């Protein structure tokens, strides 16, 4: 079943026996709308959705919505005809629009999904909320800091639901890993490291030159902030989730190192976010080498959590059984030569431990896809949105988390552009 938080298709008994649904929701309140109980309570009800933006990511969501019984896609909107027709082939009954304002006038539509270039999020999300629609907006929230704040303020002024596409918050392996981190499994958090490496130019084929900016909008500053808003915004949110703090400052460097093809956004970035406790989260993204892939690492004094792979590692290897240690010690005392130096000179190479899985039957993504991956929490996120829209249950914590991750991304961009340390502006606190 796709229509509930499938935490334990996985390992349901172990997970809930140690935590319980109530405990899970108290710890991660944004999960309130995707529990089994909530699904049963609204069984048979549907929310009528209008999709604004039917490009690659829009199609990814439209395909996922086919698996969610409480979702009914009744309208499609795109100003690029080939994309609109592709979506119409999937939902032939849905009305078609080339202007989102017309779609918002449709009283039959209860909720809209904004899956458009980043620069369009702000106006579309605010217009949709003002039109009385529930809104799912792709991350990042907006292209500017002021835009993020405006969307948040508009959300607070209305009674509609707002969801932002932060699917990691709904990915079962992340939820379980975070529960383990908060329970002290890896000890005190002392550092965090996130990265996303790819080896592709991030370009889409363009049928004619005048469509370059419309289709490859991620590469141009008037539409996007590049790697920080399209990739980092997902991963920066993980730091707050693990640590329970918000960073107070950021610095970093960004450059166009490899893809010098007329793009305006960096293809090589390196950022450091500093938290009030002194802990740092480093972030790197390079799109001309994919050796390391993508990952978020939470480093504790007792262990390390590797979130994308859903694995954890202990600093000290689990000791061998006593009897084997005894044999080993006897063997060493009989056969070993006398030591001539201590271990201090031994280089500390990376751990070769294979680690332990957070959950069984996990979906692990490579990060190479530019549109989305199977089993990354997106379906759970969409299900939660539909459920929230049906019962009109706002999800403030989700909006807050999404707001801050978008703001961190944009502050990172500012730090790179201005080549200085940016302190988190007080006026952006919500």
């Amino acid at each position, binding site marked *: 079943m796709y229509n509930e938080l499938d935490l334990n298709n996985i390992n349901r008994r172990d997970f809930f026996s140690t935590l319980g649904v109530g405990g899970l929701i108290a710890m991660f309140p944004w999960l309130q709308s995707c529990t089994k109980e909530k699904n049963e309570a609204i069984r048979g009800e549907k929310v009528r959705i209008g999709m604004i933006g039917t490009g690659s990511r829009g199609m990814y969501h439209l395909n996922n919505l086919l698996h969610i019984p409480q979702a009914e896609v009744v309208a499609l909107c795109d100003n690029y005809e080939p994309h609109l027709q592709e979506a119409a082939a999937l939902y032939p009954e849905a009305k078609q629009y080339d202007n989102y304002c017309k779609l918002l006038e449709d009283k039959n539509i209860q909720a809209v999904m904004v899956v458009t270039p980043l620069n369009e999020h702000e106006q579309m999300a605010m217009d949709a909320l003002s039109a009385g629609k529930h809104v799912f907006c792709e991350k990042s929230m907006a292209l500017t800091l002021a835009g993020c704040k405006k969307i948040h303020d508009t959300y607070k002024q209305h009674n509609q639901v707002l969801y932002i596409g932060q699917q990691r918050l709904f990915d079962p392996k992340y939820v379980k890993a975070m529960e383990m981190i908060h329970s002290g499994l890896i000890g005190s958090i002392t550092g965090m490291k996130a990265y996303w490496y790819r080896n592709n130019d991030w370009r889409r084929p363009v049928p004619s030159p005048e469509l370059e900016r419309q289709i490859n909008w991620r590469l141009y500053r008037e539409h996007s902030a590049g790697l920080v808003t399209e990739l980092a915004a997902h991963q920066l949110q993980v730091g707050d989730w693990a640590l329970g703090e918000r960073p107070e400052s950021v610095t970093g460097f960004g450059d166009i190192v490899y893809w010098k093809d007329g793009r305006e956004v960096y293809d090589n970035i390196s950022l450091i976010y500093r938290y009030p406790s002194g802990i740092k989260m480093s972030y790197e993204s390079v799109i001309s080498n994919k050796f390391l892939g993508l990952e978020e690492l939470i480093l504790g004094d007792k262990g390390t959590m590797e979130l994308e792979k859903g694995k954890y590692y202990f600093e000290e290897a689990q*000791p061998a*059984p*006593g*009897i*084997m*240690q005894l044999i080993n010690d006897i063997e060493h005392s009989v056969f070993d030569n006398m030591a001539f130096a201590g271990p201090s000179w031994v280089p500390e190479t990376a751990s070769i431990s294979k680690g332990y899985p957070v959950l069984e039957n996990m979906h692990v993504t490579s990060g190479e896809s530019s549109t989305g991956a199977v089993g990354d929490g997106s379906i759970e996120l969409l299900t939660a949105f539909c459920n929230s829209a049906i019962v009109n249950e706002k999800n403030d914590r989700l909006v807050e988390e999404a707001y801050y991750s978008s703001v961190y991304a944009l502050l990172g961009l500012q730090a790179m552009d201005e080549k200085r340390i940016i302190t988190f502006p007080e006026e952006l606190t919500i």
Partner: protein
Amino acid sequence: MKDIIITVKQQKTELKWLLACFGLAILLNIVSIIIYQTSWTEIFTQILWELLFTLAFYALSFIIRFLYKRIKK
């Protein structure tokens, strides 16, 4: 070829030696658990090591007893 006859008394004696060796192997495991502060469940989970030590101790005891008897004769 001569038949080897193991009397009931000899069988009982060997069985007692085997049990004593098994007890000694368990004791060795308990001592290891205490020294290295590992889990008490190892009394059961390390049963293969205990059986291996039992066989080793029994073989050792058999050789010593055999040599002792030879020397005594």
